[in-house]
């Protein structure tokens, strides 16, 4: 996904890139507005919307009361009414209060109305664990949302993606849920000065390789790339796929990779049982079974509410060491 001519790169962070995406959208389309808790005066729980209230005013950067269901439904209604709302639910942990409006309204109105109404609402949520925020503030529930027909679910893991997916999502006529991985907000990187909208349809091969397909998304991408670097030093050449879109999944990219390497390891920060990784594993079995040289492996969060102390949190969440072990298992090493 690189420009055809050298672009001017600027130093940025995941947070700044997200902010740029918002700023750009608000400037381009007067129908766009941001609504959520502490997005205005506080500047955003993760400082993503800092400065935007001053620039765009309280109508368009709209602080809400603590009413997840209320303002999520209002986002659906506003979208029905001709606006292009960006509903920010502070974190996926609080989205459970808004689940009814997302699952029973946003996802269904197009279908229940026989196609008469579309709901072009974009929902942004912070997600992920690793900041020692304990059991109620560390969920990764992207997999739950990816289960629901009627919505799109994307997980930007790079600066480019968090900058560019928002606009594409806003132009999309049905609901899109964007999961920003909270521990990534500080991540530094480079962004093309003219970075713009980016597709939300396809996975990306972040590191081509021959021996094993590593399939992941969101915050786990960087742990997976770390593991890849370490494995390369041992002569194991892995391919890393960043899913980018969790619903719908980019089957084509996944299957092409696994057909080539014959081995797959899925890294998913959700809990293992009934997770998105289980879905991907099932699809691999259904479609490229005869190209498999080893069972599909999964590296997921342990079956425990996320604990507070650092060492236990680290033990619970997927880590590069586990990814490396899983890769080696597929190669018949490490029995």
């Amino acid at each position, binding site marked *: 996904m690189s420009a055809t001519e050298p672009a001017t790169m600027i130093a940025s962070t995941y947070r700044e890139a997200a902010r740029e995406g918002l700023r750009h959208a608000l400037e381009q389309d007067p129908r766009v507005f941001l609504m959520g808790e502490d997005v205005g005066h506080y500047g955003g729980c993760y400082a993503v919307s800092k400065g935007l209230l001053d620039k765009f005013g309280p109508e368009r950067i709209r602080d809400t009361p603590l009413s997840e269901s209320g303002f999520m439904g209002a986002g659906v209604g506003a979208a029905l009414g001709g606006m292009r709302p960006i509903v920010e639910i502070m974190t996926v942990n609080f989205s459970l209060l808004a689940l009814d409006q997302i699952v029973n309204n946003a996802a269904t109105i197009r279908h229940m109305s026989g196609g008469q109404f579309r709901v072009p609402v974009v929902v942004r949520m912070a997600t992920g664990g690793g900041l020692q925020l304990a059991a109620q503030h560390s969920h990764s529930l992207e997999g739950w949302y990816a289960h629901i027909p009627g919505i799109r679910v994307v997980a930007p893991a790079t600066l480019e993606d968090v900058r560019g997916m928002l606009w594409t999502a806003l132009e999309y006529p049905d609901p899109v849920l964007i999961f920003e991985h909270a521990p990534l907000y500080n991540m530094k990187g480079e962004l093309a000065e003219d970075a713009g909208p980016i597709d939300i349809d396809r996975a990306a091969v972040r590191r081509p390789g021959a021996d094993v397909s590593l399939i992941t998304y969101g915050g786990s991408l960087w742990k997976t790339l770390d593991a890849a670097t370490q494995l390369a030093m041992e002569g194991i050449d892995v391919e890393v796929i960043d899913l980018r879109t969790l619903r719908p999944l980019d089957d084509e990219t996944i299957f092409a990779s696994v057909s080539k390497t014959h081995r797959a390891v899925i890294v998913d920060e959700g809990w293992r049982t009934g997770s998105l990784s289980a879905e991907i594993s099932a699809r691999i079995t259904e479609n490229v079974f*005869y190209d498999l040289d*080893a069972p599909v492996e999964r590296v997921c969060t342990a079956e425990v509410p996320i604990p507070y102390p650092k060492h236990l949190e680290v033990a619970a969440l997927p880590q590069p060491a586990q990814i490396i072990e899983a890769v080696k298992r597929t190669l*018949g090493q490490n029995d």
Partner: protein
Amino acid sequence: MSEFRMPSLGTDMEDGTLVEWLVAPGDSVDRGDIVAVVETEKGAIEIEIFDAGTIRQLVIGVDDLVPVDTVLATYQKSDEAPVPALTREQAAPRQVALEAGAAIQVSPAAPTEPATPKTAPGRLRVSPAARKHAADLSLDLGLMVGTGRGGAITLEDVERAAAQPPAPAATATPTAPAEPAGPSLAGLSPMRRAIANAMARSKHEIPHYYLAATIDMTAALDWLEAENEKRPVTGRLLYAALLIKAVAKALAKTPELNGVWTRDGYHPSDDVHVGMAISLREGGLIAPALRDADKKDIAALMADFRDLVKRARAGGLRSSELSDPTITVTSLGEQGIETVFPIIYPPQVAIVGFGSVVERPWAVDGKIVSRRVITASLAADHRVSDGHRGGLFLAAMDRLLQEPEAL
């Protein structure tokens, strides 16, 4: 006459018990009048009639449990009833659902086994890709060593095994040389690659020891010439047949040289199937088995040998011929080589090489004479046999070749 039926009050209502009639035959009713009380799981519910008319007959009695849509009573609709008679369909979607449910059969998961030349031995751990590849090459998974997780057989293991009958040969139908299955390394033909794999594996895994013996072929060749005079040109015997028979019979005393080495050790074979190394015109080597070489007479061996060579060069070998050899014989006599230092084809444990028949000075009864001799060499797997046993074999072979008429 119109029918008043047990109404469906919910998709999950199957039946109801009539507990009270609120009308009697002859009563006139208006649309919306409650005419009966029905007991359901949820409690007693009043049911109404949707027409105006006169009740004729109460069909169902009190305390009768009846399914939804059962006729409860008949009535005569009054003339001013504006409601058109509705055609009643057969009952509930529930019934349809039941039928659909009955039709669903749980089919036990039947893993599709690809056709293998032999029955797959016991419970093998084989990766799907490996299984498919082995099937494509008509190879016996049971003879392979697995290096995957938990000893599972992987694609690489199959490729290694494929090198042991090296080339991916054609199957039963004698057609033009089949398309080689499986991947090829850049630049190497599949056959070359298979040979490369097999030879590399052999040298890597098998501790070879080498023995050689020079054998006086006078008696054998004299016998052969005499035999051939009695035969038509097409039925002429080659000395190779004598060599093969000698090898086969000599093995009787040294079973450590006739069998296969698998991951659970050495398995001596009761049969002697001698693999014949045949070079192919397009380059490459193939070593199909002459089956039961110890039991066939020279003429039969010869005929089989001819047939094998022909089919090998035409690409018409049977899969069993490729997977069966219990020992291999290789001869480079035609190239004028005196001594061969052969490499064992895994999973076999020995290989016999023959050089050309040459005339050499030979000591007989203290005098130097000229004799036709051949150098036979044995490479054997030191995990299974040692030099003493190998030596016994070569000595036995020598003795057998001195009495060709007994072969």
